[in-house]
């Protein structure tokens, strides 16, 4: 792939500045500020309904903050032209649906939309990038297959290929491992790590599994109730105290025997039951 210019700068490209996020009248987060370090693999974790997907939607301008702003390259993301943003920042939402009867190559090709126009519908460059994206995600041999026929793991790879074809230096993924079995979860996370390491892309993912997050993230953001409880390298911030504070779970944090990263081991049921009894 002709390496798109993901040039370094001293200021991080994407950040949320004191944003208030709400659906209708339901406020999810207030005065939330988050910085996405450039060239990081940032993972956002937190309990259900802590606002992690909402934050991701705001960072990708799918949700308009009722206060504050999301900055992309120093400018309010909502003031930038949509297609320009789409050439800088990609999003793979949870809600993505494959149209009926679409082939893998067709779906991946749709990622080229922000690079196309009415009179420039399918350039040689589009073709090349689509092939390259399919190769990188290991779905090239599925190119002519229908997406409906694929397994969950293959389908997720195809969606990631579509997001890659968008050729954005920043890529946001909302729970890319949901509904996959453990082997395919690791498979998808390995792919993300590879994209991060070899191409210098900035990746931001929302993940459910804290241990996956601790293993793969270079930067971790822990959210609870719309507030950032801690952020930093997993080795620095994942402690038993933090897990208890964020998830309300008593646990031990040990060293992952494979990678040396923090590994969260929930306390035995007995120990937790005693704690509850003592508290009440």
């Amino acid at each position, binding site marked *: 792939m002709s390496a798109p210019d993901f040039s370094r700068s001293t200021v991080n490209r994407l950040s949320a500045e004191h944003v208030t996020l709400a*659906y*209708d009248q339901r406020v999810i987060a207030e005065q939330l500020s988050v910085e996405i370090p450039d060239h990081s693999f940032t993972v956002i974790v937190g309990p259900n309904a802590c606002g992690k997907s909402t934050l991701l*939607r705001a960072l*990708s*301008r*799918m949700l308009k903050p009722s206060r504050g702003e999301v900055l992309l390259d120093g400018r309010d993301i909502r003031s930038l032209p*949509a*297609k*320009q*943003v*789409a*050439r800088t*920042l*990609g*999003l*793979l*939402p949870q*809600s*993505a*649906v*494959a*149209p*009926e*009867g*679409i*082939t893998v*190559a*067709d*779906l991946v090709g*749709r*990622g080229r*939309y*922000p690079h*196309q126009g*009415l*009179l*420039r*519908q*399918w*350039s*040689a460059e589009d*073709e090349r990038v689509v092939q390259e994206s399919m190769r990188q995600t290991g779905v090239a041999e599925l190119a*002519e*297959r*229908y997406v409906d*026929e694929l397994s969950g793991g293959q389908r997720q790879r195809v969606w990631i290929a579509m997001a890659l074809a*968008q050729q954005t230096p920043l890529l946001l993924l909302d729970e890319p491992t949901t509904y996959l079995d453990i082997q395919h979860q690791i498979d998808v996370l390995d792919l993300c790590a590879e994209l991060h390491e070899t191409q210098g892309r900035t990746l931001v993912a929302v993940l459910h599994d804290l241990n996956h997050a601790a293993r793969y993230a270079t930067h971790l953001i822990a959210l609870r109730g719309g507030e950032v409880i801690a952020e930093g390298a997993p080795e620095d911030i994942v402690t038993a105290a933090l897990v208890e504070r964020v998830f309300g779970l008593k646990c031990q944090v040990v060293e992952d025997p494979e990678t040396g990263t923090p590994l969260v081991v929930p306390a035995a049921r007995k120990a937790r039951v005693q704690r509850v009894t003592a508290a009440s």
Partner: protein
Amino acid sequence: MRTHSRSRAVRVPGGLSLRLDPRALVVVALLLLAALAAGVALIGTGDAHIPAADVLKALAGNGNAYQDFIVRELRLPRVLVGLLVGASLGLGGALFQSVSRNPLGSPDVLGLSQGATAGALVVIVLLSGGAAEVTLGALTGGLVTGLAIYLLAWKQGVQGYRLVLVGIGVSAVVTAVNGYLLTKADLVDAARAVVWMTGSLDGRDWDQVWPLLGLCAVLLPLVLAYGRGLRMLEMGDDTAGALGVPVQRVRLVLMVSAVLLTAAATAAAGPVGFVALTAPQLARRLTRSPGPNLVASLCMGAALLVTADWASQRVFGAGRLPVGVVTGVLGGGYLLWLLVTERRAGRI
């Protein structure tokens, strides 16, 4: 392993490139041919039968005076109205089904046709208006209903399922109003109203052709330009938005266009049932291509409507059976089949 014929790119030096699906192109060409052939056959059909060759001659202006008059003054406008109404309904249906991401999200089901009927009934029953007023009333009724559905279904944007459910609710209310209006009518008005409500091409002339042609000429380029965004919308709002599609604007422009097309078609020929529902689905099965298949649906709608009108005249004689009855019977059967297969696929 099933494979799918890939679309081809046509590139011109200087950066211009077009993406074409060969199969879809062939389907569009064949449907267009079928629609025109059915149109020629329809012109030839009636109390005075005219062979196809003579019809073509007369259309080119080389027939005898008698045939020229019948073909160009009496029957051509009717066929053109049929083609335009079918095309508008096919395109409108494709837009609605794509926006709602639901094959049931067609104007028939959403209550737009019923709304146009209500407008026409108000003019016929309460105001005793003439043909032109009825057309205007139907157009107004369709537009008001479309606006009502859009506003009721609006919640930070219009979502597919909510649109369909709100549409079904609106449809029920408007149908009740229509029933009430009919009971208020005297016998003559009621008979006139019922004829209008079946949907027919009888007695249509150039007065119906021009407004419909004008509207199509304006809306078709607009709809096609926004069609690329619509393709992206099929993957979900966030996915399309992340690709740089102005989601709400695309949806609003296309919904308004679809409402206009449907209302104008209904105003011209009455609520011809089920063309908007079936044409996009049939077109899609022929092209086997994902996406809204706008042009193919348009051609399919035109071919369906004119063929149905021709069939009803051939089988039952001229002016006996309005085209709406034929499309209703065929379309109703199709709807049942659709419900059964969708149910089997676990989608409803």
